């Protein structure tokens, strides 16, 4: 690896097929490959089975989220955010709505905040379940994956009950939520959480102390604290490196300061630490949901401030303010005061940050999403070089790349 020119010539010799002593083989992993969740391409350079070089290409799922958003009204962006991180769409909804609320300088009613915490944590659990399940499946633990998917189904049915959709939730609004808790939701929630705990326990027994599994993930993809920070890691990957940075605590948005939970941290940042951190976070999230369900206050789930929520139909047809508000909201859209804000929330993968710029009109000037897995994928070469080609699988699985969020 010291002599770049030698390597370069070897590769060229390899591709022309003349030099059979070539020891470096380039192999395209992705864009369509079973281990690439979503689509991303790794051009890996192998010496035998050892990875000596890797080039990453992303952008296959780019749909112009930011451009579309800047050509929409503020409220029209919410459905687009569903499609960012498509395993935890509610967290994106919540993040964007909180960002716009920050731009307005208002806060949602407490009941709405507690509901958001419950739904947000449910989404976080589904995110972790998907990530862990998929990562385990790819190293052969197929049963574990399907058990987790079964558990995820319990939660997605709750999401469906709340929002009417499993993925395209479109649930939050500026200053509250579109729906309140449905009848009997909290009982159902307790039921499902109990079932989820059973599944977690079962899966824990199946995999966490399995020697083969530990051999596959231990000391794979280790990352130092310094590198992790420099690469801008956040979320479970940063915590696996041993840094207890969690936006829920560090910036304490919403009502997280009233809830009691722990931030699990790892030590070496290898795939096993990431696995354990995510497993523990699921348990912490269950804990948070239970507390929030206990503490949830009565009250409105939507702010009654004018020009933020669409007036009730009886006001639209019944009085002139309602009619005008409705007309202006529909024709001109929400008009947050001019300014710029950056609103971070803890997503499933790490810090989801919305940077919004408003000029006071109904059209956003800039809607920027800071995708957490962008940094992880950027660090993929640093994590994989020196490992075997089979290690791409657990490493990339634990990175939990979400194409929608990465490529926007």
């Amino acid at each position: 690896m010291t002599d770049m020119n030698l390597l370069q010539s070897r590769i060229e010799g390899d591709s022309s097929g003349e030099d059979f002593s070539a020891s470096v083989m380039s192999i395209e992993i992705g864009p369509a490959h079973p281990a690439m969740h979503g689509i991303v391409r790794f051009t890996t350079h192998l010496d035998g089975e050892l990875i000596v070089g890797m080039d990453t290409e992303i952008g296959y799922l780019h749909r112009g989220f930011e451009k579309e958003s800047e050509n929409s009204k503020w409220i029209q962006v919410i459905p687009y955010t569903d499609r960012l991180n498509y395993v935890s769409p509610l967290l994106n909804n919540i993040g964007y709505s909180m960002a716009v609320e920050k731009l307005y300088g208002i806060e949602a009613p407490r009941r709405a905040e507690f509901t958001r915490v419950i739904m947000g944590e449910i989404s976080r659990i589904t995110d972790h379940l998907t990530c862990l399940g998929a990562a385990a499946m790819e190293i052969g633990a197929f049963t574990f994956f399907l058990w987790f998917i079964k558990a995820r189904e319990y939660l997605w049915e709750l999401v469906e009950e709340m929002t009417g959709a499993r993925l395209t939730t479109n649930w939050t609004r500026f200053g509250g939520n579109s729906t309140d808790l449905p009848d009997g939701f909290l009982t159902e929630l307790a039921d499902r959480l109990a079932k989820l705990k059973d599944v977690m326990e079962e899966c824990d027994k199946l995999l966490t102390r399995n020697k083969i599994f530990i051999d596959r993930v231990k000391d794979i993809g280790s990352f130092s604290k310094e590198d992790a920070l420099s690469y801008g890691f956040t979320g479970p990957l940063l915590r696996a490196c041993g840094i207890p940075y969690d936006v829920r605590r560090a910036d304490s948005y919403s009502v997280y300061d009233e809830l009691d939970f722990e931030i699990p941290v790892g030590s070496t940042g290898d795939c096993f630490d990431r696995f354990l951190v995510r497993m523990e976070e699921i348990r912490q999230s269950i804990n948070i949901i239970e507390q929030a369900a206990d503490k949830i206050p009565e009250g409105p789930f939507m702010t009654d401030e004018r020009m933020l929520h669409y007036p009730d139909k009886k006001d639209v047809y019944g009085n002139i303010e309602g009619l005008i508000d409705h007309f202006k909201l529909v024709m001109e859209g929400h008009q947050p005061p001019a300014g710029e804000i950056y609103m971070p929330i803890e997503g499933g993968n790490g810090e989801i940050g919305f940077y919004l710029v408003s000029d006071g009109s109904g059209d956003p000037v800039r809607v920027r999403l800071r995708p957490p897995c962008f940094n992880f994928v950027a660090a993929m070469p640093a994590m994989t070089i020196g490992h075997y080609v089979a290690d791409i699988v657990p490493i990339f699985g634990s990175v939990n790349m979400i194409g929608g969020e990465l490529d926007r």
Partner: protein
Amino acid sequence: MGEEISTKEAEIPQDTGELTSLLRQEFPDEITDYHSHRGDETVVIKRDSFEPVCRFLREDSRCSFEIMMDLTAVDRLEMNEEPRFEMVYHFKSLTHARRLRLKVRLTEDDCKIASIHHLWKAVDWYERECFDMFGIHFEGHPDLRRILMYDEFEGHPLRKDYPIDKQQPLSQLKEVDERHVYGRHT
């Protein structure tokens, strides 16, 4: 935007945040504007001193911004502001539990800025994305290629004068060796 919310020194001296005062003390001539709208500390600096300021933010123990959270640009064409582009950098310090937004304004015909990829590794891809989307040139970046768009793409999609429904040429199938320069990460 800038005029209404940016707090001019004479008018509102308080509540601009410790970092702003520190930066103003360290780089008195470089800071052109600052505000802390909704609690987000924001400092606008001149382009020439951008790299030293970043180095200071990264290395000085009073700042120690370990994480480069986000890097993007804003095209202010439709806001009728001059200069047209505004580079926006978000930093996070875990030591001091603080965030900072640093901004640099760039004119349209000279949209170049020093690359800070040597300070934070995350910057590499962020700068590529910003180049891809806005056409900002980062001087000193080792590999300034498109990242989300493909190589044949013409124009920079997040510029406000780029029409949202513009058609683009399709990319051609190419051989592997042409696409990739080997050895960048080794």
